[in-house]
């Protein structure tokens, strides 16, 4: 049997592989970058630790092997705390190496517009096949010229409330207006069952409550063009005054120090009667009925209902948390990553992940609100339509870099917080306006 030496093996296999896969070295030199193949490629996907653990299990146990089978791509999923994704993204972009795909929250894609790769073809096809993307997913993931990522999902935010406690004060369904909600909250707080709302520095709950609160009174940080700062208005002052009164009358004042999980704990412990949140409170209480009980010893989940944001003088608004998969510009696996994004967001594959969420998120495209999952549990019904009419910080202007800066500096949140801490509403609005103006300067 003829022996093949090490040198000969490398020569044959290396040359053969290159010739077979690329059609020659000239093509590589002409492209100016290393070739990328779906077959045998590894795609590194960075995302948050899901609030629904079974979804993470599904990704690890089923999606990874399916991806290898269907695409020949080795999928490497890394899950980290949502608050740490930006630090990882910044480090990866600056060093030019890191995850190929990063699942961004909020309007972060606008911050990294110059560092993401082209995915317009993938996003357009997904949108076309699945009834189009919701407005909120589009404003955060599209910069007017191209898609900065492929929209992934929307984490819905609705008010989880204790039905029996609201019944006890004579409120049989969730209040429709802020006045009704305030009246109910006043009675509840007097009974030691306050409303719980975060008003601190955290990316989820504070913005999803206080931004639509402001809009529902007619206040906004900028006009429709996104260029003129209009925060210092009568409507904003009214919103802040009402916010302070609502806080004092109805809310658990510990909320000034809450992060995104504090209200979950408080609700599950039975110390608050209502809170704007994802469906995680209800889903967890339902998953562990023996652990989370009411004061009467009955399963807590049976006493939880969900209500949409109350209406203000200027209408009803909501702010949801969209997520977007960004293909990073530095990735050396761009073709493979695009194939992966098209595959994971396609209906048959996405369906499995969507089912595992149990309604915690709705898809970024409109077909998912028609899914039969919403017929399974009427308590989850308000989350079905969270994508409709949802707006995002920066409204009525674009959710651009300036809006992202105002959001990440918590200027709108701190405007309410300062007023709650004793600053006059007028001064709090003036302070916030000057900060927003500096961002837009």
């Amino acid at each position, binding site marked *: 049997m003829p022996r093949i030496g090490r040198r000969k093996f490398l020569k044959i296999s290396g040359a053969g592989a290159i010739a077979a896969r690329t059609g020659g070295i000239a093509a590589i030199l002409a492209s100016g970058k290393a070739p990328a193949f779906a077959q045998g490629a590894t795609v590194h996907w960075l995302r948050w630790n899901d609030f629904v653990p079974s979804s993470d299990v599904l990704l690890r146990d089923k999606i990874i092997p399916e991806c290898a089978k269907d695409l020949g791509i080795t999928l490497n999923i890394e899950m980290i705390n949502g608050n740490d994704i930006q*630090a990882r993204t910044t480090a990866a972009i600056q060093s030019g190496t890191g995850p190929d795909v990063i699942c961004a929250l909020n309007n972060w894609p606008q911050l990294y517009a110059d560092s993401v790769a082209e995915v317009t073809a993938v996003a357009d096809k997904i949108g076309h096949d699945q009834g189009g993307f919701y407005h909120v997913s589009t404003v955060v993931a599209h910069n007017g010229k191209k898609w900065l990522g492929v929209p992934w999902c929307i984490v819905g935010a609705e008010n989880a409330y204790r039905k029996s406690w609201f019944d006890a004060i004579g409120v049989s369904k969730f209040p429709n207006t802020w006045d009704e909600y305030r009246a109910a909250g006043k009675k509840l707080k007097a009974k030691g069952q306050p409303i719980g709302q975060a008003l*601190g520095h955290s990316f989820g709950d504070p913005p999803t409550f206080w931004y639509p609160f402001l809009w529902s009174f007619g206040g906004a940080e900028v006009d429709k063009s996104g260029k003129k700062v209009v925060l210092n208005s009568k409507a904003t002052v009214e919103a802040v005054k009402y916010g302070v009164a609502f806080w004092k009358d109805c809310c658990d004042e*510990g909320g000034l*120090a809450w992060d995104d999980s504090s209200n979950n704990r408080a609700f599950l*412990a039975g110390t608050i009667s209502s809170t704007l949140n994802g469906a995680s409170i209800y889903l967890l209480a339902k998953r562990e009925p023996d652990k989370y009980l009411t004061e009467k010893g009955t399963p807590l989940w049976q006493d939880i209902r969900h209500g949409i944001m109350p209406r203000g003088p200027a209408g009803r608004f909501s702010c949801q948390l969209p997520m977007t998969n960004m293909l990073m510009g530095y990735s050396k696996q761009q073709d493979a990553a695009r194939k992966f994004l098209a595959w994971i967001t396609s209906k048959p594959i996405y369906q499995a992940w969507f089912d595992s969420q149990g309604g915690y998120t709705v898809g970024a495209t409109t077909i998912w609100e028609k899914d039969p999952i919403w017929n399974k549990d009427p308590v989850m019904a308000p989350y079905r339509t969270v994508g409709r009419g949802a707006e995002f910080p920066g409204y009525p202007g674009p959710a651009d870099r300036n809006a*992202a800066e105002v959001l990440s500096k918590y200027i709108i949140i701190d405007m309410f917080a300062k007023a709650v801490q004793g600053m006059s509403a007028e001064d709090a609005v003036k302070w916030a306006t000057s900060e927003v103006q500096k961002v837009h300067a």
Partner: protein
Amino acid sequence: MAVSGLATRGAFARAPRRGTASRLLEDERWLAAALLLPTVILLALFIAYPFVEGVWLAVTNATVGVPGKFVGLANFEMLWNDSIFRVAVWNTFVYTAVATVFKLGLGLWLALLLNRNFRGKAFTRAFILLPFIIPTVLSTYAWKWMFDPTFSVINWTLFQLDIIHSRINWLGDPGLALISVIIVNVWRGVPFYAISLLAGLQTINPELQEAAAIDGAPPWQRFWHITWPLLLPVTMVVVLFSVIQTFADFQLVYVLTGGGPANATQLFATYAYQLGVGTGLLSQGAAVSLAMFPFLLIIVVVQLLYIRRVEVH
């Protein structure tokens, strides 16, 4: 004569030839430079390069993924007019000053106690180090739980002891939030002071104390005229390290409050992170970080001069 001359020539021929490197290393100046080179390379790579890069970033308009252009001092001008930055500067000074005073006082007290002979001394000394050993993020999460407005064990205890009748909003009240983060910093920093000062105390010759005691000096005078002067050089070095660390503290505040409520606990480092990472404004984040430099430089220079004066005395 001839034989002798041949032998000498043979011995010379057998002697090893010295290369240029060997000859250079025999020169003390070159040898010193060669020995210093690895350290210089390490310092240049890990200290000088990041610092220069930070300075460069601070004078550009770079954002994440965009190198940016030179803008001179525009970022610092922006900071000068930034009300959040001013709050962060004030908070950092209060945080550093108050925490350092308490860490020094409590650390010194603990060191004096640990310097005595008692049963379980070794165990106690090891135990004292726990706050310093536990990863800061982990212990800060424990503190966050203890300060939780709803589930605070501190509030529960005070309530049970009938000391309070309504709960204390530790991290929600602006004043209390700053006090709370200072408390955690003191808790974490006291062991470092205690162990370092204890090491200093053990270098003091006990005969000095004994002689003073025989002369009738009471404990306070013995401390003030013997222990304190001899401990001062160590104390100053410990304070120096501590001030630098406290001034640039990040993780403790980031975990406990994220700089809130309404920037009441915002420090240099947390604000730099918020701008640089949270908003992607790398240049402004770098400018905030760099703004720490002159303050720290003044503090360090003053302390080093003082240490030198103390050592000369």
